[in-house]
């Protein structure tokens, strides 16, 4: 019954999406019928309701163990706890595309509801574009990756998955299905997997809104700042989710993949990073259009490029392109996804060029100084695009070209990325430090230099502290200096504002800070984001350049030494059965720092008897401090007595700054996206009470 409900609601959601496209465009462009356009809007809401029903149906099927549904059978098993049954919704391709479609439908309904009155001219076209994307993904769910297919036994004895009952087929017995159910991929049985994919999906699908409004502006001819106002906030929402998704993905890799790192420059990771790079460039350059009426064409390219990168990333990771260009051709969703991405990009670019050729995207001002804020933002955009090019080339360009034209397979790994990207990241951090103290319009180097004096001095002093702390590598000190400069600029600019306000209004520090932030949340949210990136940068430099590692085999009672730590192997717990059926082999270790016991660590290897593909998982033991992470992996052990075991140990300096920097970045983004017009009445009244020109 649940399969039928899910299937029918998905089918009607697909029809509603198609109707919304036709009604909106025809109603606005040809029939000039408001009623028709309104019915298109209602179809958006209906689509959302139907997709909600569809997702809930699959979720209930997972929770109630309806193994006749092939998706439920493939991602869950009777021994799995409810928590993982819940997350199994996005545990495999069909379910994750349904979930993706649902989120996109939710975003579309939300954007339609919030902007219907204020953006009447853009809305019909925006609805058409949003629903075209929704319709594509719902169509993929219906016709290619249907999560509501059920198992059937044909008269010939073959077992097939089909949405409809084949002639003469019977359903397999529930007991047989439960007994053979696959269970969730072991790598996905982690708390991070409950949050990481939804965040990433929200980030990805969220960019459909800025894309749709940009396209609506191009299609309708309303190229005023209306589309910018809407798209910037939605882009920020998507960006914060994407950032969170990337950071959580790094944390999951660190906890589960058992290699002591958080970013492996894997094509799948890189594919998610690519839209983030262009999206970040857009969030910077959109300010230039708002303030100076410049870069109109460029912003169109960026916002459309971001969504195009989202679709490409989805296509690349789901089609098998990452493994090989040939597996993409074999994948069922490969060609439809590629065709959709290609069509979407071509139509978008054509629309931009068409409007541009008619002179409708002409800038109001030109660049007047190389040191003006807009010039530095252009340079910032260029660096983001350069990073995009370098990472795209390493992840997809070179491997595909070498396979297609040179008949050889190559994989560009960390070696390549660590040669090509550092100069660009350095340039980016320098710009992060310099741009906030530059002025819009005309600006001089001398004025900028004066504003940079204090941050430069503070950055130099901070680098001095690193030297005192024992860091002597010139490269590392240079890196820390550049990163810290960006952070100090953000702090100094904020403090300067607080002190000036204090002088004028005689307020205390906290009141001044709050008043400053509430008056200009975008600017101070932006500074907080820069501070978050600085903290992440410090963590990346520390954990990359100063990571220590060793691998040793220890007998029970023996110790190994690394840095200031000593690790003792105390014993082994073999074949421990967990609640979800996994079999755990656990090593018991004691960690000493400068001879003092600081922690008991239990690295382990989990084995999943029911899993078919990857059936084991390495869970590291870690002792975290502000200074570093002591991270230990159980590599192997003497099978019968476990009298000896091999451990791989890492010391990852400053690695926790990456997660904390991520949190700061999230708070900063929320602040930057906070709408001033919805400030609490109390705050608005307080601001109004401040004497004008005081």
């Amino acid at each position, binding site marked *: 019954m649940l399969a039928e409900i899910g299937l029918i609601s998905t089918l009607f959601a697909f029809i509603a999406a198609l109707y919304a496209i036709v009604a909106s465009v025809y109603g606005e462009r040809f029939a000039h019928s408001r009623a028709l356009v309104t019915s298109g809007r209602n179809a958006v809401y209906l689509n959302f309701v139907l997709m909600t029903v569809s997702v809930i149906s699959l979720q209930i099927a997972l929770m109630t163990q309806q193994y006749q549904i092939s998706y439920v059978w493939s991602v869950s098993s009777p021994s799995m706890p409810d928590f993982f049954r819940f997350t199994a919704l996005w545990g495999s391709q069909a379910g994750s595309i349904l979930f993706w479609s649902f989120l996109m439908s939710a975003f579309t309904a939300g954007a339609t509801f919030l902007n219907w009155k204020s953006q009447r001219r853009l809305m019909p076209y925006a609805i058409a574009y949003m629903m075209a994307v929704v319709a594509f993904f719902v169509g993929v769910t219906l016709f290619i990756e249907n999560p509501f297919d059920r198992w059937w036994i044909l008269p010939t004895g073959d077992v097939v998955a089909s949405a409809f009952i084949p002639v003469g087929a019977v359903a397999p017995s529930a007991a047989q299905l439960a007994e053979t159910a696959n269970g969730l991929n072991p790598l996905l049985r982690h708390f991070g997997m409950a949050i990481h994919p939804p965040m990433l999906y929200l980030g990805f699908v969220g960019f459909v809104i800025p894309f749709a409004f940009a396209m609506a502006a191009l299609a309708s001819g309303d190229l005023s700042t209306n589309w910018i106002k809407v798209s910037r906030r939605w882009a920020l929402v998507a960006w914060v989710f994407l950032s969170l998704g990337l950071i959580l993905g790094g944390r999951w890799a660190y906890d589960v993949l058992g290699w002591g790192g958080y970013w492996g420059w894997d094509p799948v990771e890189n594919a998610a990073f690519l839209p983030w790079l262009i999206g970040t460039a857009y969030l910077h350059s959109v300010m230039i259009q708002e303030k100076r009426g410049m870069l109109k064409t460029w912003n169109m390219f960026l916002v459309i490029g971001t969504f195009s990168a989202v679709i490409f990333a989805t296509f690349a990771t789901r089609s098998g392109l990452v493994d090989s260009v040939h597996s993409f051709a074999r994948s069922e969703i490969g060609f439809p996804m590629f065709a959709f991405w290609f069509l979407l990009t071509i139509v978008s670019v054509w629309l931009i060029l068409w409007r541009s050729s008619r002179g409708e995207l002409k800038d109001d001002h030109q660049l007047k100084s190389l040191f003006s804020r807009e010039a530095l933002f252009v340079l910032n955009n260029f660096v983001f695009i350069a990073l995009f090019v370098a990472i795209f080339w390493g992840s997809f360009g070179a491997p595909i070209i070498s396979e297609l034209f040179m008949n050889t397979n190559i994989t560009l790994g960390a070696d390549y990325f660590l040669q090509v990207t550092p100069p660009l990241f350095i340039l980016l951090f320098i710009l992060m430090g310099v741009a906030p103290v530059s002025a*819009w319009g005309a600006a001089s180097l001398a004025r900028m230099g004066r504003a940079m004096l204090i941050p430069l001095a503070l950055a130099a002093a901070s680098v001095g502290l690193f030297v005192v702390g024992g860091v002597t590598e010139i490269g590392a000190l240079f890196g820390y200096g550049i990163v810290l400069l960006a952070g100090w600029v953000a702090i100094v600019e904020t403090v300067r504002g607080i002190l000036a306000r204090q002088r004028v209004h005689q307020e205390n520090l906290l009141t001044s800070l709050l008043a400053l932030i509430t008056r200009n949340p975008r600017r101070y949210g932006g500074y907080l984001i820069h501070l978050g990136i600085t903290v992440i940068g410090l963590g990346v430099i520390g954990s990359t350049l100063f990571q220590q590692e060793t691998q040793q085999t220890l007998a029970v009672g023996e110790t190994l030494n690394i840095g200031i730590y000593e690790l003792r192997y105390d014993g082994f717990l073999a074949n421990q059965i967990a609640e979800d059926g996994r079999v755990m082999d656990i090593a018991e270790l004691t960690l000493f720092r400068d001879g003092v016991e600081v922690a008991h660590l239990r690295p382990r290897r989990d084995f999943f008897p029911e899993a078919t593909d990857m059936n084991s998982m390495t869970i590291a033991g870690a002792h975290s401090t502000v200074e570093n992470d002591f991270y230990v992996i159980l590599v192997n052990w003497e099978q019968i007595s476990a009298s000896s075991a091999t451990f791989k140990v890492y010391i990852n300096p400053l690695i926790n700054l990456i997660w904390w920097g991520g949190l700061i970045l999230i708070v900063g983004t929320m602040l930057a996206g906070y709408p001033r017009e919805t400030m609490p009445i109390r705050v608005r009244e307080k601001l109004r009470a401040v004497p004008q020109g005081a």
Partner: protein
Amino acid sequence: MRQLMKYVQVLIALVMIVSIARTVNAQDGTTGAITDDMVNAIAAKLYCPVCENITLDTCGTAACADWRYEIRLQLEQGMTEEQIVEDFVHRFGDRVVGTPLDPALRALSLVTPWIIIAGVLVTVAYIITRRNANAPALVQPSNDETTGNRYQDMFEQDISGS
């Protein structure tokens, strides 16, 4: 002749792997003077020829454990890091290293992104220059405190509450 010797060495190594690996319980335990860290230092530079984008030092498959053991044996035979990496590339292709050793592939990998980036930079510079040339007279940076310092204006606007 040198090539032939290399093949013989590899053959011997493979025979030894099959026979020795079966009897070794702790597959990454130390053998002779070669430590796990020495093996991992080289394994970290090689990608698993079977799995995608996983370096040999972190790959958990039995095949990778065998390859790590092979690296150990090669080290014991006195092969240098460079020779071992070259040997793996010779047998499995350039996909086992993070950046290809083959000069043409290496150039394609490392130089192409910079060429594209330079192309983008030149295009952007050209567009900006052309637009500025078509625009009215260029405004020079001004030191006039009353008109030029928008940054200060903006800042004062923030703190004033206006």
